[in-house]
């Protein structure tokens, strides 16, 4: 924040000390799960099962990483994840922000009804089977676009942007409209640049949502291996143990559980994929942060 030479009072000092301590403590509590996952992924399988790596790796090794990185499907899945994230984020952020802008206009006929029409999508669902059949009838099964189109307009993000635009001083746009600029020009030239903080937020939301989603892959594109994403790969590993337990429940005749149980991949592998799958997001977020940390100067834009 800007550095006024104000006299720092004692109470302010006390508050700052308290604030720093609290925030750092919070950050540490939040880092811990990730640290644990990281330690586990760097631990030797046998050593980790004897000594749970709660603070430090037990029996440091990179073998888990080696195993994952040499998995033949790993890099194609990584690329697919990146692709869907990039395409999905660009389209969704554009659609949500433009629609939000349109919805800020009182002059739009049927605005209220249409706005509610979009908002209600947050609360209704036709159930998995119906959605699946609809996707199939659109020809989206085993197609890349099933990652993009259904989630293109997120009511939640649209509302966030709309709320933000409504808080901007309206004079900005009015002055532009006097110059004869149309809606589209106004949106790109005035509104979009002013919305940087919220756009950055939505970019992070959408990108993370895209990156983390595996369910659409699981449901719609499982038959097309070239569309396998990293998170789906992870999901398959995470779910192994659960699936076997499920089998145990229904195994009324002698499936060889001993053999099946031995085939579960070690926890370290799951931890490793978790680490690898969250790394790219790590890269994105700090980059986006610069848009939150510096406040915009509306005056400058007006100037």
């Amino acid at each position, binding site marked *: 924040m800007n550095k006024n030479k104000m006299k720092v009072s004692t109470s302010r000092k006390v508050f700052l000390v308290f604030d720093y301590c609290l925030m750092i403590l*919070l950050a540490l509590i939040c880092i811990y799960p990730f640290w644990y996952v990281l330690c586990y992924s760097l631990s030797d399988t046998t050593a980790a099962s004897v000594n749970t790596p709660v603070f430090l790796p037990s029996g440091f090794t990179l073998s888990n990483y080696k195993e994952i990185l040499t998995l033949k499907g790993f890099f194609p899945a990584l690329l697919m994840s990146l692709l869907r994230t990039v395409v999905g984020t660009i389209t969704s952020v554009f659609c949500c922000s433009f629609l939000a802008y349109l919805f800020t206009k009182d002059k739009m006929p049927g605005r209220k009804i249409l706005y509610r029409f979009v908002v209600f999508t947050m609360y209704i669902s036709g159930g998995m089977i119906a959605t699946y059949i609809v996707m199939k009838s659109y020809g989206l099964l085993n197609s890349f676009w099933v990652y993009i189109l*259904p989630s293109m307009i997120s009511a939640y993000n649209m509302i966030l942007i709309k709320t933000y635009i409504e808080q901007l*001083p309206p004079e900005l746009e009015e002055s532009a409209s006097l110059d004869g600029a149309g809606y589209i020009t106004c949106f790109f030239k005035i509104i979009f640049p002013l919305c940087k903080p919220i756009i950055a937020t939505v970019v992070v939301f959408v990108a993370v949502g895209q990156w983390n989603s595996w369910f659409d892959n699981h449901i719609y594109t499982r038959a097309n291996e070239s569309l396998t994403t990293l998170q789906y790969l992870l999901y398959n590993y995470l779910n192994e143990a659960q699936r076997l337990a499920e089998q145990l429940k229904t195994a009324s005749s002698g499936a060889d559980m001993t053999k099946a149980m031995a085939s579960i991949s070690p926890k370290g592998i799951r931890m490793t994929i978790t680490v690898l799958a969250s790394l790219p997001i790590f890269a994105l977020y700090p980059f986006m942060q610069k848009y939150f940390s510096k406040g915009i100067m509306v005056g400058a834009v007006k100037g």
Partner: protein
Amino acid sequence: MNRKRGFVKSGSKDYKLLWMAIPFITIVFLFSYVPIFGWIYSFFDYVPGVSIFDCDFVGLEYFKLILKDNNVLRALKNTFVFAIINICLTPLPMLLAILLNELRNGPVKKFVQTFTTLPNFISWVIIFSLATALFASDGIITMLAVKLGLGDASNSLLGSNEAVYWFQSFLVQWKTLGWNSIIYMAAIAGIDQEQYEAARVDGAGHFKCAIHVTLPAMMETFVVLFILNIGNFLNTGYEQYLLFKNSLTAPNIEVLDLYTYRIGLQNMDYSYGVAISVVKSIVSITLVLAANMVAKKIRGKAVI
């Protein structure tokens, strides 16, 4: 904030705006509204794989079943408790954003800001395995508590039915707090710096600036999210609860979503599951509209 928008202040409508919105509305319709035809499954005895025309029509049978089912009542109670705790905790991310904002720009702020969002990226399965390592009878935290005389090893947090509501809500906060504060950080970033200058000229200190400038700027977002959340009252998700459910915690942990999951998949009772989700959708929309009306009465401005 309640200023009219638009180029010319007149009652005339501009159809151009509608035409521009149509493509987006169509997408919403195609992907969110067309699948609602699936609601008809709740009136049939649907068997996955069989055409709906070959399934028996049962009318309102499944809706009647909801009313008769004791489990629904119990699940509803749990859902309510979780939702109320959750709603009470909605200001937390906002508070975090203010506290973060008070830190000086620098590595500490960045560090805290980045790392508080981390738990959001770790799936529940892994959080569960971590929770076991920490809170089981021989977990580190349990052992620490025993040493401090705060509890005994035979009664771990994971198996405590009394602690379910608080423990699970705590986990949710832990996982999402930092992430949810992002939106408020953005709101703060959108504040016109002139407002701070003006406040300072009036002799406001840091604290007063926070109360009179920062907080109001976030309020709009807060109210909107709050009202949207009320609509999500019944949507708690099930994954977390499924993982943490065991014989000891079952009475308090089974929320409506988990119950729906159980009957839909484990019992293959698909139509019953749809019937519940139809009721849920209707309740959600009613709630959100009601909350909106209340907001309109109080603030004179509707959210949706």
